[in-house]
C-alpha cells in the first residue's frame, strides 16, 4: 500500500519501472527465441570460417546457384501474388455484390476453411488431380485429346504457381472483402449522377480508393509465398531451386555448404521480407485513412 501511494505522488504510476516486471517473461522468450537467433545469424553472416570479419559470405551470394534461387523465389511469389490479387479482388468484388447475405457469408466461410488447406495436404491434392496420372490430366487427354504432360508438370515452376495460387486466392478474398465493403454505395451513385459511367467510376473513384488496400494485400501475399516451404518441398523435394528449399536442405544436411553463406542467405531473406512487411504496413495505413 505504501508503495502504491508513493507512485501516485511521484508521477503517472503507469510509467514506474516495476510495471514492466509482469511482461518480462514475454520479453525474455521473444528475445531468446526470436531476436537472439536472428542476431547471431546476422553476426554469422559477417564471419569467416575462422571467425574473422568478412564480406565473403555476401559476395558468394552472387554465385549462380544463389541468384537463381532468389530469382525463382521472387518470380514464384510475385506471379502468384499478382494472380492472387487480380483473381481474388475480382472474386471478392462479386462476392460482395451477391444479393443474399447468406450466400456471402457462406463464401466467406468456405474461404476461411480452404485457406487452411495448404502445405503438404495441398501439394498432395494437386498431385492427385494434376500429377502425370491425375484425374484432370486424364480427363483432359481422354475427352479433349489434350496431353498436358510433358509440357506441363505439377512438379515444375508452373505447377508450383498453380499450387501457390490455390492458397493465395482465398486469403486475398478474405483480405479484400472489408476493403470492397468500404466502398460506399453513394460514391457510385454520386459518380453516376454526375455523368460518369461504370467504367469512369472504377477508373477515377473505385480503384483509386481500393488501391492502397490492394497494394497492401499484394505485398502480404508476396511475403506469404516467399516464406512458404512445405508445399514446394512436398511437390519437388529439394530439386527445385527456391530460397526456402535451399535453406532447408542446408539445415537437413542434404547439401554441405559453408554455414556463413546460409546465414547471409537467411539475412537477405529477412531483409526482403522485412521490407515487404514494412511497405505493407505503410500501404495499409493509407488504406485505413480513406476508410473513415
Amino acid at each position: 500500500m505504501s508503495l502504491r501511494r508513493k507512485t501516485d505522488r511521484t508521477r503517472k504510476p503507469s510509467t514506474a519501472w516495476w510495471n514492466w516486471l509482469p511482461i518480462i517473461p514475454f520479453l525474455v522468450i521473444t528475445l531468446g527465441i526470436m531476436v537472439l537467433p536472428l542476431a547471431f545469424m546476422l553476426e554469422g553472416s559477417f564471419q569467416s570460417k575462422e571467425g574473422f570479419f568478412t564480406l565473403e559470405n555476401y559476395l558468394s551470394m552472387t554465385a549462380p546457384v544463389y541468384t537463381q534461387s532468389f530469382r525463382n523465389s521472387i518470380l514464384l511469389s510475385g506471379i502468384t501474388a499478382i494472380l492472387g490479387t487480380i483473381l481474388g479482388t475480382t472474386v471478392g468484388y462479386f462476392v460482395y455484390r451477391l444479393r443474399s447475405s447468406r450466400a456471402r457469408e457462406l463464401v466467406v466461410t468456405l474461404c476461411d476453411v480452404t485457406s487452411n488447406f495448404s502445405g503438404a495436404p495441398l501439394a498432395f491434392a494437386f498431385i492427385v488431380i494434376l500429377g502425370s496420372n491425375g484425374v484432370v490430366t486424364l480427363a483432359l487427354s481422354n475427352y479433349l485429346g489434350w496431353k498436358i504432360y510433358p509440357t506441363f508438370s505439377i512438379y515444375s515452376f508452373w505447377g508450383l504457381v498453380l499450387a501457390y495460387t490455390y492458397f493465395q486466392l482465398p486469403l486475398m478474398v478474405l483480405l479484400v472483402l472489408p476493403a470492397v465493403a468500404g466502398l460506399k454505395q453513394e460514391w457510385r451513385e454520386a459518380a453516376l449522377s454526375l455523368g460518369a459511367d461504370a467504367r469512369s467510376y472504377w477508373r477515377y473513384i473505385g480503384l483509386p480508393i481500393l488501391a492502397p488496400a490492394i497494394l497492401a494485400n499484394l505485398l502480404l501475399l508476396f511475403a506469404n509465398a516467399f516464406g512458404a516451404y512445405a508445399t514446394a518441398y512436398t511437390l519437388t523435394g529439394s530439386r527445385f531451386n527456391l530460397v526456402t528449399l535451399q535453406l532447408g536442405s542446408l539445415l537437413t544436411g542434404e547439401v554441405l555448404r559453408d554455414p556463413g553463406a546460409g546465414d547471409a542467405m537467411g539475412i537477405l531473406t529477412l531483409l526482403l521480407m522485412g521490407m515487404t512487411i514494412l511497405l505493407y504496413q505503410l500501404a495499409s495505413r493509407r488504406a485505413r485513412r480513406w476508410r473513415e
Partner: protein
Amino acid sequence: MKQRNLLGPASIVLFLVYMFLPILATYVFSIAVRWDRSILPEGLTLDWYRTAFQDRWFLIVFRHSITISAASVLVSTLLVVPTAYWVHLRLPRARPLLNLITTLPFAIPAVVLALGLIKLYGQGPLQLARTPPMLVLAYVIFTLPFMYRPVASSLEAIDIRRLTEASQSLGASWVRTLVEVIFPNILPGILSGGLLVFATIFGEFTLATLLVGARYKTFPMQLVYYTRRDGRIASAYSVISFTVAWATSLIILWITTWGTRRSSGRRSPVGRAGGGAPAGGKA
C-alpha cells in the same frame, strides 16, 4: 446488362470449383480402390484408412502432433494473455513495442527461424535446438500474431480500464474483477486465438521437420513421408489433417460470430478477415 449479371456468378462458381476440386479429389482418392487409370475411381474402399490406422506410427505421430499443438497453445495462452492484459491496463506505453513484436513473425519465414535457432542452440552435447520443448517455443513465437491479435482486439473492444474501474468502484477485488469481469469478456478472443494456433501447428511441417525431424515425428511429417511412398495412405492422412483443420476453423468462426454478436450486437459478414487474416508462412 445480361452479360454483367452472368459474369459475377460465373467467376464465383469457377473460383469455388478451383477451391474444391483438390479437396474433393483428395477425399475421393482416399476411398478409391484405384484412381490413376480412369476418370472415375475403380470402386470404393476403406482399406487405406485401415492400413493407415493399423500402422503403429499412426498413433505415435498423431499423439505427437496433438501434444505439441496443445502444449504450444497452453504456453502461448499463459504467455500472451496476461502480457496483453497487463499492457492494456497498466502499461500503454509498451503497446507499440508489443505490436511490433507480434508483427515481426510475419516477416520471419519458418525456415529462417529454424536456421537461427539451430545456429544459436544447436551446439554442444544437449542439442537444445532439436528438442520438442524448443519446437514448442518456436511455435509460440511463430504463432504470436494469431494469438495476440484476437486477444488484443477483444481487450480494446471492451475498454478494460473503465471496466476494471467500474468493477472496483462496486467493491470487487482485483482477482474477482479479473475472473468475473475481464476474463468472460475476452474469452472469445482467447478461444479463437488458441484454436487458430492449434490448427496452424497441427498442420505445420516446416519447423517440425527442420528442428526435430525424425527424433519426434509429427503428423504432417508422416504425411509427407507417405506422399513419396504410398499415395493412398497419404490421401487418408491428408483427409484427416484437413478435417482437423476445417473443424477447428469452423469452431473459430462460430466463436467469433458468437463473440461479436454478444459484445456489440451486430454481426459482420467479413468479421474475422481483419483480425487473424495474414495466415501465411505455414504453407
